[in-house]
């Protein structure tokens, strides 16, 4: 009798711990990615006209369920090149009243939950000097600039330098060096 009770207790406890671990793993992934987004910003140079207005803050738009991300909230208080950083999280693409607002952003992160809207979004922000980031497969091929990938349980990223060049964004070599894959425009094309 007591043995059965013990086993049951152990079973439930194990279950609880597993759940906790699962949450704690998924939670930091969001934080790490949020930190990465800020770092991407640091290794990227925008064309002058995009950041010339000193009164305008640097805008980071996030579309997807990152509302609870602590790092993003902290980023909102930070400064980048003497400018305030403004972080705005949209729960989903559908929630955006005027999608054209996305054009005013400097960094746009599209969560995996918004995969189906990726193409629409990219279309909107094209030629608006927006650093587009996502975490879905074939994002680069769809016309995105940076995409998170997982490699050996570690969060890495890949870069489409061709699009970046098209958007007049300069991504520094230090960042490119760390990328798992860099798509570069063939000069012969």
């Amino acid at each position, binding site marked *: 009798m007591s043995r059965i009770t013990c086993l049951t207790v152990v079973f439930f406890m194990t279950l609880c711990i597993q759940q906790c671990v699962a949450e704690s793993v998924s939670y930091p992934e969001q934080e790490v990615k949020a930190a*990465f987004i800020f*770092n991407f910003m640091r*290794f990227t140079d925008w064309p002058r006209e995009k950041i010339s207005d000193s009164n305008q803050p640097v805008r980071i738009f996030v579309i997807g369920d990152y509302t609870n991300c602590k790092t993003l909230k902290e980023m909102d208080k930070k400064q980048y*090149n003497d400018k305030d950083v403004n972080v705005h999280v949209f729960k989903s693409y559908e929630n955006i009243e005027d999608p054209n607002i996305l054009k005013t952003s400097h960094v746009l992160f599209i969560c995996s939950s918004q995969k189906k809207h990726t193409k629409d979004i990219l279309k909107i922000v094209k030629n608006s000097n927006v650093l587009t980031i996502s975490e879905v497969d074939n994002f680069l091929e769809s016309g995105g600039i940076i995409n998170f990938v997982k490699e050996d349980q570690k969060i*890495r990223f890949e870069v489409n330098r061709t699009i970046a060049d098209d958007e007049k964004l300069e991504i520094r070599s*230090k*960042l490119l060096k*760390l990328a798992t894959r860099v798509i570069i425009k063939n000069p012969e094309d």
Partner: protein
Amino acid sequence: MSKSPEKITNREAGIGQIVATVSRNMTIRHKLVFMIMAACVVSLVVAGAIFTGYEWANLRQFMVMNLSAQAEILADNCKAAVAFNDSEDAKEVLSSLRVESSIVFGGIYTKDGKLMSAYYKVGTDKSVQPERLKEDGYEFSGGYVTVFKRIILDGEVLGTVCIRSSLEKIWTMLWSRIKITFAVIIVSLVAAYVISSKLQSVVSKPLLKLAKLAKAISDEKDYSVRGQKTSNDEIGSLIDAFNEMLNQIQRRDKALVDANRQLEAKVAERTSDLEQTIEKLNESNKQLQDFTYVASHDLREPLRKISSFGQLLTESLGEKLTDDDRENLSYMIDGASRMQQMIEALLTYSRVTTRGVDFEPTDLNQVVEGLKNFELSVVLEETNTKLIVEKPLHTVNCDSTQIRQLLQNLIANGLKYQKKGVTPEITIRSKTVDDSMVRVEVQDNGIGIKEDQFENIFVMFRRLHSRQEYEGTGIGLAVCKKIVKRHGGDIGVSSTYGEGSTFWFTAPVADSSRAAVLAARENENEV
């Protein structure tokens, strides 16, 4: 704190004393070289130590600067890697450290101090990594220098780069500098020795010359030489002073020699004067002696006549003479006889030298016996005197007639100055003074002599009493003294006033007597 200056002074004095002790027996030449070399060694060692210390500080600073630059480059290069937590890339950045062999460890730490990526030199392990992390800066510990540099991206600290290098390299460099410095010191000292050996003669040569000159002057007493002045410094002044001193000495020496010569001349003059005077004195003395002898001898005859004819006159006139005449005549006779006595005494005195005969051994016992039986027999009987001779008397080497006179005078003297109503008692004794002299004593129980008169009584015509009290010529003891002196002896008196006197004299002991004395003494020694 207030004691420290005193201590320094003591220390300085101590060093001075040590140097003085060490260099006490050195020649001035070696002393100079020693002093120069000591100063050189101290200054070179101090300079070398300062140089080495400066080099050490410089090398450390240089190493820190070098490492800091490297750390800065690393921090810059690994920004992205740290920002994206890419340890592989960080490792790659760190791998550039391998080109610097002295770097043993390089590490990239995250913001919360975790080691993200590390580089270890081949052959080292994790023990070389620093135990704790610092912010920007460096530290020397455990034979390593460790530099820390924060990784800053857009004003945000992402982590820290740390590089640690072993100090072996700068030790090696420092050691080679020390060797070079040491070699330079040795070479400099050799050069200093060579130069100081040559240059010391500038100081020592004139001094040595002067010392040699001084020794030559003191040995040969030649004050005409002079030191040669070669410089205008203190040594030059010394030579000047020395020469001036020589001038003075030479002047004084000359004056002294002159004075000496004058003195000698004066002494010679005086001596010849004295010799002449002595000769004159001797001459006149002899004349005086001759005169005395002749006068006294020739005076005796008329005196005797006055005396004897006076007596004849007294007898022949007899009753015809008044009492006054008789008294006057007796005064005349008495005066003549006293004068006769005095002349006799004077004759005796002068005869001591003029009529002296050669010395011969004379037995004093026989002399005393003779006096008792002949010259003094009457007076001894009259006065009822007890004449005691203690032990047999010695035999002396003398003029027997004079020694008889001497003893007669002394005994008579003792009898003459007697207390009234006391039986005179004369004791004669003799004893040896040394191997060559005999002391003869004549002791009486008479009136005695006051101590302040001891010397006067031997002077001629010096009398202590009036003629009315005690008769006498005042010549007797003077004769005694003359006799004793002629025999090379001494005469004297000891007395207690009122209890008696002891007259004593010394005379040369006769050879036979001396042999007896020596034999007796030897016997005593043997016993």
